[in-house]
């Protein structure tokens, strides 16, 4: 492998890892605060990508589409939490798994009713459609770099929100002791709604920004969901920091494996996960 190719793969790996972080952080946040395992989280990623396509087709602007999609996702998150998830807090994990499997079925059906089953594509926004030349023949698309920077920006915003703001303080308090937070006169159910809606929005936003890089196909949600599971299992369930490290690790391993050991490439992240579990059954950063 030449140095240039190595650098390209490195950037690809980091960029994929950062995108995974965006999705996995929502999954792990919802689990950490509310104790809910949301299998339909991948469906939100899918919905985000389809919404992005729909609004780009109708408004012509990627920026407008992204904002509208994010708002719709937020509202969808509030609706789902208020009508369904709310009833599961005191139930076991099995009920959560089932309910969210049901949600996956519904979302997949809605996707096929609303947008059909043919692969769709979103054009890269014009402002970001250029490429940076690396050598005479190799160049790197600006859009991918934009995605990486955007994800880092979101990660910093999340870090700041959780550690420095009042909402973050409530989230951390809710994580450690639900009853105590209630006793202090804080409406925990509203906090849960907010956290769940943010989680849904993060996944959908990831779907929106991923839309110009991939083809939008049915089942894309399930594929990414499993990768996110690997991320949160490696990082430790409920830990945002763990999700960040885990996502980068998975992104890099996945990207380099497809170059170095193509036969094993799609298995490699699971082998990594099994290995880490052998050493630390609760993940790297479990609380």
């Amino acid at each position: 492998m030449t140095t240039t190719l190595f650098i390209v793969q490195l950037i690809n790996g980091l960029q994929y890892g950062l995108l995974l972080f965006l999705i996995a952080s929502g999954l792990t946040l919802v689990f950490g605060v509310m104790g809910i395992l949301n299998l339909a989280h991948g469906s939100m990623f899918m919905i985000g990508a389809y919404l992005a396509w729909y609004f780009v087709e109708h408004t012509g602007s990627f920026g407008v589409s992204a904002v509208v999609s994010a708002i719709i996702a937020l509202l969808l998150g509030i609706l789902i939490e208020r009508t369904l998830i709310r009833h599961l807090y005191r139930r076991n994990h099995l009920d959560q798994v089932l309910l969210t499997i049901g949600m996956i079925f519904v979302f997949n059906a809605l996707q096929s009713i609303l947008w059909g089953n043919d692969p769709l594509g979103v054009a890269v926004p014009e402002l970001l459609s250029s490429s940076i030349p690396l050598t005479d023949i190799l160049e790197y698309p600006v859009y991918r770099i934009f995605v990486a920077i955007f994800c880092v920006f979101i990660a910093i915003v999340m870090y700041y929100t959780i550690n420095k703001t009042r909402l973050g303080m409530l989230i951390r308090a809710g994580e450690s002791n639900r009853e105590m937070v209630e006793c202090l006169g804080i409406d925990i159910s509203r906090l849960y709604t907010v956290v769940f809606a943010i989680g849904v929005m993060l996944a959908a936003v990831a779907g929106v920004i991923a839309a110009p890089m991939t083809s939008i196909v049915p089942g894309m949600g399930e594929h990414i969901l499993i990768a996110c599971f690997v991320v949160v299992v490696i990082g430790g369930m409920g830990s945002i920091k763990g999700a960040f490290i885990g996502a980068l690790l998975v992104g890099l391993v996945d990207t380099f494996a497809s170059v170095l050991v193509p036969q094993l490439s799609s298995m490699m992240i699971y082998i990594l996960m099994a290995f880490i579990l052998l050493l630390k059954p609760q993940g790297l950063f479990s609380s």
Partner: protein
Amino acid sequence: MLFNKRTERLFIWIFFPLALMMPLFLEQNTFYVSKLTTVMIFSLFVMSLDYLVGRCGLITLGHAMFYGLGGYIFVMIAPEYEAVNFWLYTLYICSIAAAIALLIGLLVLRTSGIYMIMITLAFAQMAFYYFSDSIEFGGNDGVFIYVKPETSLFGLSLFDLDNPIHFYYLCLLSLFNTMAFFKIIMRSRFGRVMDAIHENPDRTVALGYNVFFFKLISYTIASALGAYAGYLFTLQYGFVNPSMLSWTTSGTALVMSILGGMGSIYGAILGTLVYEGLHYSLEHLTEHWLLFMGALIILMVMVFKDGIAGYLEKLLEKRS
């Protein structure tokens, strides 16, 4: 008595005689016979999952891995153009699947709850990608089986596997035996300890039992039987492909098990029958059957969580 609940006995006395007579009514219609055969096979698979999740409290979302492995192990070890012995290969496949389950169990059972759900899923995905990427096993298309095994046992050949009616009875017999087998385990000393572990693992440790060992044995047994179901499925359709190991297979099985009534064992048959029946009729009504299926599952979790068996028992059992 092995079948200790009234509802359970009632179910057995209604279901098995009906199932035995069914091919007489459907003689001309092999389509329904083979459809019912698939339901039996899947019931067997769901039953093994029901034991694992409902009786042992080991929630797995990767049980389909063993379903698929049942087929793939057969393809790996059986010669391509030669009829092998069905019973012998049943033994081989279950033993190999058990050995794999033992190894994976050592890793997976170190965790519990939500972690175990995700790790079992990840292992199943690993197997899924292994087979769907491999050229040797035909990738996404899978592998065809040209010659079906013969079933002679001590010189006596009871079933002709190419005959759908014979195959139907083989699956029905397997289903009944599996059900009886799980009931025997549940009523044995082993099963009692497993119940205690399900109820409270910490106290069971305090009583001096090696909880990990019991979990591992249960996991291995259920996985081997899951592989047996996959083996039957492969023989019925004459092919094996990666979709057998996909996570939707595990998810659907879990839904069927809950629908039937988690942990009741016989509920697995009820759940599979009802689910497949609904699936079949909805599919004929609308191409968007998935929407209704999803809504049904959500409704089930919200209001009908004891499943069909739980509901029947509430009606039929004497209150003590």
